[in-house]
Each structure stands twice: as structure tokens, then as C-alpha cells.
């Protein structure tokens, strides 16, 4: 036992000696990027990182933040809560980050309390979790619509399309069940609709034949499908093979991938529609400036709908402007400045450089991002998330129209 204790002590000492961090106040401003570069969220990881790099390059091109270079510190959380906890510890205790972005729902829930304790201003650009519906606003802010919004808009689209009965196919995961449960409650309780079947299934099944048959053969007006796109591909292959192509489908945001559009688009008469979170791209200088820079990072490919990349970009511009506004990297001061940056009153600005110039001139600013006006409510959520009806046209996703959430539809209790 003595040798074991000596070995443990040695490991601890070696590890402590090996670590090297920069705690200098005058060093670079460190933006943490804690994201699933591997694991379940891995397919989105490359786009998310490319967008974050575009933002940090923009910050540095404008002279940095507070006159200091900005460094993006990347940590893979493996798409797990455990990875988020250890990754956040590394970012804060080894790298000494000043702010955090990139985190997803389950990781955010795990580090939520610690973020507050350590006073690390955090913007959640990919977490729809309903856990954040009423708990943010002090240190944690969310700049994408919540799963609650996504569920409501799905029901709104179903209603507007005239569907009175819907079958549901829902993957058992937090990100898919959350909007689906809201959809179901709103569609049945507030619209008087009928759910003909509510089929829940796991990711990674060998086949989805039974689930697809159960939903599509229940005689619905439409089928609501909430699934990740890895699951969506085999599921829709089964849909195509069984010839249920005359029944329209309503998808959740995660199915907005090119592969899914190609499958649906390859079938004559098939219809898939998505009521989804969207980017506010019309007459938006921030978006126009972002697209070519993202494409340069992404092998020439422009951003796709709902790949979450543009939110990753927006979060670091907000954090940079908030630090400039606060005049410090102190966490509490930066967090307090975030709503001031994102909300009116102030001069509307669409880039970090313009925002910085206005702040230097002593003006308040209202930053409009690539994705929306980013106005936040008192609990750190988007005040008016941009939603759109998106459908498959010529084998690709295309925005049919932007819509506003029907204010008469409310979050189910």
C-alpha cells in the first residue's frame, strides 16, 4: 500500500509540474471553445470550429480585445457530460479562459453551477435544452431558440398546413424528445389535434421497419419525425422502401442535412417540411460578411441551414464586444455587459470593428448578428427567435418563408 501511495503522490507531482498555464493579466484574451469534436455531436464539430475561428480572426483583425490578442482555446468534450466537466476544468484551471462558448445542452447542464461559481461568462450557441428556459441571464446566455420554441413552431406549421392528425416518430434523446414533447402538447391541447401513434425509438437500431410502419400506417394527415440525421438516413430509407411517400412529413431541425434532402428529393411526390430555427439572412450585413469567410475555412462550401455554425460565430463577437464595453475581462462585469451589447438602445452595428468604433466614441451599441438581432430577455434567452418554414426543393433545403411564433401558443406547463 505504501508503494501505491508513493506512486500516486509521484504521479500528482509530475502532473502538477508538467502543467503550464498563462495566468498573466496582460497575456492574450482567452476564449474557450468546449464542444463535441468527437462523439455524437462530432458531425457538427468541424463547422462549429470553423465559425469560431472566423470570429476570433475578426476580433484580432480589429486590434484584438482590450488591445490584447484573442486566443481560441479548443477542448473536445467527447459529446458527454463527463467530458464537459473535465474539459471545462482544463479550460479554466490550466488555460485560464476568460469566457466560454460552443457547449451543447447536456454539457451545459452539467457545468451550469460551476460556470456561476467561477464567474465565467458563457454563451450557449447550441443548447436548446428546456433546462435553460428560465435559469439563465446572470452568467449563461443562449442565442439560439430553445427546444420549446422548436416544438411550438412545429405545431404551428402543422396547423397552418391543415393537418388535423399526426403520427410521431421520435428518437429517444434529450435533443429530439424535448421539442417533440412540446409539439405533442401544443398540437393536442392548444390546437385540438390528434396523435394517431407516438412511436419512440433508439438511435443505432439495425432496422426501423416496424417503427416506420407503425407510424405511417396509422392513417395520419402527416408524420412528425424528430431524430438526429444519422438515424434519419436509415429511417427514411425504410420510408422510401415501403412506399409511404404520399404522406407528408414534418421534421425537426436536426434533420436539415443535405443527405436527408437528397433522399426526400429523389422521391416523386414526397413532401417534407420543417418549422425550424433559422438565420435572419435578408438584408443582413453581418451575414453577408460572414458567408465568404466561413466558406474559405470550409473548403469553399458556404454555411448550410441549421448547422449551428453562425451562432458559434455570433457568440464570440458578443463576448468580444462585451469585454470592450466592460473594459475588463472580469467575468461578472463581462456578463453584465452582454445584454447591453445585444439589446437596444444603441447604435445598430453588424461587426466587431463597427461595434468597437462606436464604443470608443462613447456610444451604446445594439449588435445584430449573422443569425438574428440577438435581443435577449431577462433570463438570457432570445426575445424573438427567427423561425422559418423550410422545405425540400430540387433535392436541397430551401427557406419557403420566415415566420413569427404565434403568440397565442404558449409553452405547456
Amino acid at each position, binding site marked *: *500500500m505504501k508503494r*501505491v501511495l508513493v*506512486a*500516486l503522490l509521484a*504521479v*500528482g507531482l509530475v*502532473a*502538477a*509540474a*508538467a*502543467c*503550464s*498555464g498563462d*495566468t498573466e493579466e496582460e497575456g492574450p484574451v482567452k476564449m474557450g*471553445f468546449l464542444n463535441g*469534436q*468527437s462523439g455524437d455531436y462530432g458531425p457538427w*464539430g*468541424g463547422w462549429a*470550429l470553423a465559425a*469560431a*475561428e472566423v470570429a476570433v480572426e475578426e476580433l484580432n483583425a480589429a486590434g484584438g480585445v482590450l488591445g490584447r490578442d484573442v486566443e*481560441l482555446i*479548443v*477542448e*473536445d468534450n467527447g459529446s*458527454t*457530460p*463527463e467530458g464537459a*466537466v*473535465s*474539459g471545462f*476544468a*482544463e479550460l*479554466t*484551471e*490550466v488555460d*485560464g479562459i476568460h469566457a466560454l462558448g460552443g457547449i451543447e445542452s*447536456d454539457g451545459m*447542464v*452539467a*457545468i*451550469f*453551477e*460551476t460556470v456561476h*461559481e*467561477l464567474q465565467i461568462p458563457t454563451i450557449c450557441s447550441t443548447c436548446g*435544452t*428546456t*433546462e435553460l428556459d428560465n435559469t439563465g441571464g446572470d452568467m449563461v446566455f443562449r442565442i439560439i431558440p430553445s427546444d420549446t420554441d422548436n416544438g411550438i413552431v412545429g405545431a404551428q406549421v402543422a396547423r397552418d398546413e391543415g393537418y388535423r392528425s399526426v403520427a410521431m416518430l421520435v428518437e*429517444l*434523446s*434529450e435533443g429530439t*424528445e*424535448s421539442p417533440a414533447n412540446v409539439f405533442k402538447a401544443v398540437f393536442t391541447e392548444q390546437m385540438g389535434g390528434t396523435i394517431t401513434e407516438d412511436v*419512440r425509438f*433508439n438511435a443505432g437500431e439495425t432496422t426501423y421497419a416496424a417503427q416506420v410502419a407503425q407510424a405511417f400506417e396509422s392513417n395520419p394527415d402527416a408524420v412528425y419525425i424528430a431524430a438526429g440525421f444519422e438515424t434519419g438516413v436509415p429511417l427514411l430509407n425504410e420510408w422510401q422502401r415501403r412506399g409511404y411517400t404520399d404522406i407528408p412529413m414534418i421534421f425537426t431541425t436536426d434533420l436539415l442535412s443535405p443527405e436527408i434532402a437528397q433522399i426526400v428529393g429523389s422521391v416523386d411526390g414526397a413532401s417534407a417540411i420543417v418549422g425550424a430555427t433559422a438565420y435572419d439572412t435578408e438584408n443582413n450585413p453581418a451575414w453577408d460578411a460572414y458567408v465568404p469567410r466561413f466558406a474559405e475555412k470550409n473548403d469553399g462550401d458556404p454555411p448550410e441551414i441549421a448547422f449551428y455554425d453562425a451562432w458559434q460565430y455570433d457568440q464570440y463577437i458578443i463576448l468580444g464586444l462585451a469585454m470592450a464595453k466592460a473594459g475588463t475581462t472580469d467575468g461578472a462585469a463581462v456578463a453584465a455587459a452582454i445584454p447591453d451589447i445585444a439589446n437596444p438602445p444603441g447604435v445598430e452595428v453588424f461587426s466587431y470593428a463597427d461595434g468597437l468604433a462606436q464604443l470608443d466614441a462613447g456610444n451604446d451599441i445594439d449588435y445584430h448578428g449573422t443569425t438574428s438581432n440577438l435581443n435577449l430577455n431577462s433570463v438570457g434567452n432570445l426575445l424573438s427567435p427567427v423561425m422559418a418554414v423550410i422545405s425540400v426543393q430540387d433535392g436541397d433545403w430551401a427557406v419557403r418563408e420566415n415566420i413569427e411564433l404565434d403568440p397565442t401558443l404558449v409553452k405547456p406547463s
Partner: protein
Amino acid sequence: MTNPIFWVGVLTLAMIYSSLAMALNVESGWGGMWDLGIAGLLAAGSYCYVILTSDADLDMRFAPELSMWVAWPLAALFTGLVAFAIGAPALRLRREYFLITTLAFAEIIRQLVVIQADLTRGTLGVPNINRPFDSFVTGRDYNYVLLGIAVAAAAVMYLVTRQVGVSPFGRTLRAARDNEAVALALGKRVNRMRIKTFILAGVLIGATAPVYLFYIRAVSPQLFAPGITFTVWTALVIGGIGSIRGGLAGAVVLIVFTEAVGLIEVDPAHINILVAIEPFLVGLLLVLVLRFRPDGLFSERSAFGAGNRPSRDSAGDSRPAGATQGSGG
């Protein structure tokens, strides 16, 4: 020198995995029951603790809001009951059938957590786990408290498993593992002994579950994917299956090594390469350990004295096995 709290956190996680690896060693190292259901038992203990201690305003169907000091032992006992429910049928199988069955039971437990959403909050999970002493010590300093709890839990685990290992029960368990026919001929009730061992491992894993939750601070079904089982197994293999201190040392080496690899600094553009290399390096560590120390860092023979266990070459059928009676699936 960087704030040492990062390494405090790493050692905390290492102690948690050490506890799990030592519990696994009792059933798998000494009992010969190669269990791939660790994640399921950990989930059972975790959710029992969470349900018993969570605030009523989380809208869970059953929320007695017990003290964590009451809920902690109850979580251990409940996990023992779950282990019995799994072990009773599974231990009728042998070798790979037992292995697959335990893996299946772990997934069943995870799915039960998902579908019993009114009791467990399903895929949404439960945030803000209640932690001991957090009203007295807050912020970064709590990491030291948590390390103390994890070290204490690992120390208790070490003492308990060591006591089991050197006891007549432990000797009989290993004897039955190495030659069941002889054990049966000597009148040993091998099956009953194995079920007791399986339950004991369940209790030990259930007792570790709250410590794991103190570290994560939230619980959700995704936490209990099979990856956690394979990490515990890797730690045990590195440390030495069947040795008393192998689980402890193996987990420390594995977790510290994994986190140290994560400290390698790369340009953000090359993070995908590092992400790909990390599991490769962990695999390489495992290969190197098995190449140069085939029995792990600590061998069973060194733990119990030469001749106590046949060498791997001469052990013949002293191998992975669930139980030996039964139909074999």
C-alpha cells in the same frame, strides 16, 4: 505553476474510477464473472440517489427529499438488489453468454430510466445534484472537499475488497474460478457464492455512484453509455486483474494519462487530429502494459503469494466465465 485544482479534479475522477475498478475486480478478477454491465449498475445507484434526494419542485413523481446521508446507503442497497435481479438469471449462463447478458441488462436499465420520465425526468435528466458540505465550502475550494470524499471512498473500497480477497470467502471464490469441479467436489456452493459476490459488487458500485454524481453535478441517461464500462475494464486490465491494488493503480494511470494527453497543445485547425490520436494513445498504453507486464501493473500472484493462482500459461480454463452451471445460453 498552474492552479493545481485541475489535477485535483483529475485525481478525483481517478479515485472514482479506482473504486469502480476495485468493485469490478471482486466479481470479475476473483469471481471470474466478466461483467459488462457496470454502467447499468452505476445508473441504478445514481438514479436511486437522485430520486431520493432531489427537490420536489423538479416535478418528479416520487421525491421524498431525503438527506443525502440516508440516501447514500440506500442507493448502495438498491443497487445490490438490482444486481441480484440481474445476477439470478444471468449467472445461469457462462462465458460470453454471461458477458452479453450483463451488457444487455445495462442497456435495459438505461432504457427504463428513459421511459420512466415521470420518475427520472427521462432524457432531460436532473441538474444541480446535492453535494455534501457545499454549504460550508464553495467555489474552487470545494474541489479539495470532493477529492477528500473520493479518496475516502476509494480507501474504504480498498479495505473492503482487500478484506474480501484475503478472507476464506475470497480464497474459495478464486479457487472456484480456477477449478470449479474441485470446488464443487469439496462441497462448496459455487453458484450461491457467485450470486453473493455479484450482489456485493452491486452494493460497492452503488456506494460509488453518489461520488460520481458529486463530480458530474447532473445526471442524465447519456451518462451511462457502455463507454464507462469499458473505461473501468481498461483501468482494471492496466492495473492487473485479480490483484488487490490493481484497480486503484490502473485507474490512476489511465485517467491521469488520458487527461495529460488532452493537455497537448495544438492549433485549433488540427484539433481533429488530436481528437483522433487520443484514443490511439490510450490504446497504445494498454498494449505496452500488456506487452511488458502481461498481468498488469500488479499481478494476482504478487497480491496473494506465489502459487496461489496458476500462471496464465498453465491456467488452462481459468478464463473468462460467468458461472459454470446452466445451459450455456
